[in-house]
């Protein structure tokens, strides 16, 4: 809103104009032409004036009020000739959509006070420049989008709603916000994929303004339709300092299973090397600390050896004054060790039974061995429905319905039509093992030979763990809070050996991985960490139908009721920290919400980033199209008002 002036006159015209005020003053200094008036006697007048001469300076000033007014009038008229205007923004449409990023990275303080506040300030500027015909809508977005204010021309309401946007700790995704904006601008488009949602506002072309730091991916698939994106404004600086905790977890020591180890990964996304102290806290008391140096743009791991500890909340804390605070803390919850409960249903599988009898496996789980006949008993039905086991392994058999437990199917398909298998193939060539999955860690199948297998067609959302040229031989798929692992080949057949895997070293490792990952064994950190905004499935060992979750930032506790399959789902994980789970007033569990998002932690902005939405590419800019907002009309009105005032003074000055 910087005032601008335009010169409408050439120099000699200015000179002429500049001569006007001195001329007025000169005229005033000349003797006033007084109107003669005959009066009976000047006797009394003369006496009155003699008295008034005492304060004659004031008299002169009073007389020059008209002069001052005339000079002011001329000055204003000269200003009008300069055609003053304010620098503003021109809107392409009269329907505006402001998309305000309130993700975690917008809490960075490299722009004072925060990037979010700066974004709000920029939006306010635009709201102030809205014309009388303009309507605007405000959408805040992080990993999901929310309409803060529908289209309105009420600027006061827009300001209020804008002010109410709160920072969040969530990651960024532009897609949801684009859908919300698009549905207001394009007829017949739905905000969700469900066709039941219809546009509530009349769909008209609109201009879309981004206020973000650009920490999100382009959306080349999105069709803008009637939406016109304005040049985005990336809020932030090119060289902020930030050291982030990218990962933090605990695991049992490989050398001494009695001991726990805490692992963290620190990333320095700044442009300078960072030296800082890292503290490890157990239940808010410092138990260890280390001084680390991280080169610019690099990451490094950090490891703490912990003595035997029962349970508690571990916090990793970076002592640094970088620009983003939300990723300087990470938490993990250490639970009381508890053995997993495993049911093995098999007609007889010596290698598997042996693998479940190893010292480590016995430590991790209690295994119950049953024959396939057991599946038809009432006892099985009741216990499987009541989640009596954490993991059920079906070897060459299958139940009628899926149990309330994680499952592993060996040489058989789960009931239902979700899973399918292809034709039997002989000696399939194993081409890939998904070692990133916890089940397949430290597993090497290069020496494993499968005699015959039926490649699997897993349901959507599943992950192939072992792939052969003909298809997946082993896959894992989620099912209502549980996971099902299916092997497309038998370990030992009824009459012949199906594979040589059981005699390879990787087999017991697989069994241990399965016990650790699927067997409900929680001694290595228990529930995994959750990102802000993601739902958490709680399975506490309690009969209660209602739990309370206390968020970390002094917010009110949230009631959670037991959902289907006995799982409590909690979705309000908007902030990082440790959430307490209460049953009544008794604390029964904790879970940690951590940012752990390299994209949010890398807070440098790229000022020349090109935003690509659909086929439209909008190059960034620090400002929008400039437009002149003329103010000379207002000044002219002011001059007119002064003229009227002067006329009034002239006519009424006898009474002033």
């Amino acid at each position, binding site marked *: 809103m910087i005032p601008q002036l335009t010169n409408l006159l050439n120099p000699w015209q200015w000179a002429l104009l500049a001569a006007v005020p001195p001329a007025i003053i000169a005229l005033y200094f000349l003797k*006033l*032409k*007084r*109107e*003669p*008036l*005959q*009066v*009976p*006697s*000047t*006797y*009394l*007048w*003369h*006496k*009155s*004036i003699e*008295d*008034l001469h005492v304060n004659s300076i004031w*008299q002169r000033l*009073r*007389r020059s009020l008209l002069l001052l007014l005339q000079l002011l009038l001329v000055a204003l008229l000269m200003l009008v000739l300069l055609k003053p205007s304010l620098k503003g923004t021109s809107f392409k449409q009269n329907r505006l959509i402001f998309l305000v990023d309130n993700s975690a990275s917008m809490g960075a303080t490299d722009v004072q006070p925060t990037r979010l506040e700066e974004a709000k300030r920029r939006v306010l500027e635009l709201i102030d420049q809205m014309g009388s015909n303009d309507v605007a809508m405000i959408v805040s977005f992080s990993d999901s989008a929310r309409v803060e204010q529908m289209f309105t021309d009420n600027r006061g309401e827009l300001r209020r709603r804008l002010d109410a946007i709160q920072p969040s700790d969530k990651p960024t995704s532009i897609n949801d916000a684009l859908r919300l904006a698009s549905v207001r601008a394009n007829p017949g488009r739905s905000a969700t994929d469900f066709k039941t949602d219809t546009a509530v506002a009349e769909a008209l072309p609109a201009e879309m303004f981004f206020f973000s730091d650009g920490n999100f991916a382009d959306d080349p698939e999105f069709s803008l339709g009637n939406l016109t994106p304005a040049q985005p404004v990336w809020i932030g600086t090119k060289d902020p300092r930030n050291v982030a905790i990218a990962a933090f977890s605990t695991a049992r020591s490989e050398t001494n299973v009695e001991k726990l180890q805490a692992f963290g990964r620190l990333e320095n996304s700044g442009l300078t090397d960072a030296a800082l102290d890292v503290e490890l806290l157990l239940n808010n008391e410092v138990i260890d600390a280390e001084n680390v140096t991280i080169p610019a743009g690099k990451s490094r791991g950090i490891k703490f050896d912990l003595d035997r500890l029962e349970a508690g909340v571990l916090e990793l804390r970076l002592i640094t004054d970088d620009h983003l605070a939300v990723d300087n803390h990470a938490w993990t919850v250490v639970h009381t060790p508890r053995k997993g409960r495993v049911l093995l249903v098999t007609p007889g599988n010596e290698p598997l039974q042996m693998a479940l009898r190893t010292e480590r496996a016995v430590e991790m789980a209690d295994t119950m061995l049953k024959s396939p006949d057991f599946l038809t008993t009432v006892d099985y039905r009741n216990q499987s429905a009541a989640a009596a086991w954490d993991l059920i392994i079906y070897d060459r058999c299958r139940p009628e319905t899926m149990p309330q437990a994680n499952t592993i199917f060996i040489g058989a398909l789960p009931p239902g039509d979700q899973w399918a298998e292809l034709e039997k193939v002989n000696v399939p060539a194993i081409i890939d093992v998904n070692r990133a999955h916890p089940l397949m860690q430290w597993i090497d199948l290069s020496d494993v030979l499968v005699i015959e297998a039926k490649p699997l067609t897993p349901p959507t959302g599943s992950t192939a763990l072992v792939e052969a040229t003909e298809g997946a031989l082993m896959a894992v798929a989620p099912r209502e809070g549980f996971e099902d692992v299916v092997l497309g080949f038998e370990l030992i057949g009824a009459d012949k050996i199906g594979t040589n895997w059981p005699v390879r070293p990787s087999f017991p490792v697989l069994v241990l991985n399965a016990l650790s990952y699927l067997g409900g064994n929680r001694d290595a950190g228990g529930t995994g960490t959750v990102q802000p905004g993601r739902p958490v499935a709680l399975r506490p060992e309690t009969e209660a139908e209602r739990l309370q979750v206390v968020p970390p930032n002094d917010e009110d506790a949230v009631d959670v009721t037991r959902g289907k399959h006995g799982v409590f789902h909690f979705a309000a994980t908007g902030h990082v920290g440790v959430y307490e789970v209460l049953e009544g007033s008794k604390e029964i569990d904790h879970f940690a919400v951590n940012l752990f998002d390299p994209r949010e932690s890398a807070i440098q902005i790229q000022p020349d980033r090109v935003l690509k939405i659909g086929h439209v590419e909008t190059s960034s800019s620090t400002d929008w199209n400039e437009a002149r907002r003329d103010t000379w009309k207002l000044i002219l009105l002011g001059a007119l008002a002064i003229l009227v005032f002067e006329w009034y003074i002239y006519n009424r*000055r*006898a*009474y*002033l």
Partner: protein
Amino acid sequence: MPSEAVPLLSPELLAQLERLELVSRKIFRGRIKGERRSLRKGQSVEFADFRNYVPGDDLRFVDWNTYARLDRLFLKLFMEEEDLHFYCLIDASESMNFGSPTKLDFARQLAAALCFVGLIRSDRVKIETLGQSAAQRGPTWRGRASVWRMLDYLQGIKAGETVSLADGIKNFCLRNSGRGIVVLISDLMDKQGYDEAFRYLTAQRMDPYIIHVLSDEEIDPDVKGDLKLVDSEDGDITEITASVPLFKRYKQTLAAFIGGAQEFCARRGMAYLFARSSQPVDQLVSGYLRKRGLIK
């Protein structure tokens, strides 16, 4: 702005005036018998008192009936009736020629009313202006028959005399040394002040009444803008810029001027009366002058 058409006395006022007479706070000896009761005992028909006879008394006034009864000589005293000298002194300077009606018109009407009262009560009535020289004497009227001559004389008075207030009154006092009531009708707008003039009046053995007449324009001036005020008498110029403080100051000066004259008169036993030229004369005569005791 003199208006010849203004009748000096309306019939209604005349009817009202018929019932009035002039009163003096001092008792003066008239030259001839008038209709006025004198302190002196005289030869009227109204009995007043008895007193003892002393040698030299007129034997015509001895009460012989009392002598017959008491064998002592008593003199019968009767009430004496006498006339009054009434002087009306009009300021006919140029400044009196302002206002609507003009202050001079007002003065003429007031003088006519007062003189009429005097004439019908057989008082000796004399009208003079300040501008008359010491040697120039005005006519004296007496009796109802003189009313029309008196009115003609009043009509003949024109504004434009240039003599100062003090000189005018001095000349008047030189011309008229006798006793009586003198009514001065003036705006007192004299740059040398009124003090000296009033002192001449008090030195006479007269009963002076000062009727101070100002026009509405002088009391509430209605002027705007930058003006050059020209004095109607001496052409003196005063430049003013109309403003509220100036008007305020003017009003204060005017109030001080009127108040000063009032106080001056009160101290010296002169009757002072302030009048607006726009005020109806009958109202002034029948209301205010009666209250102040000039007429009853």
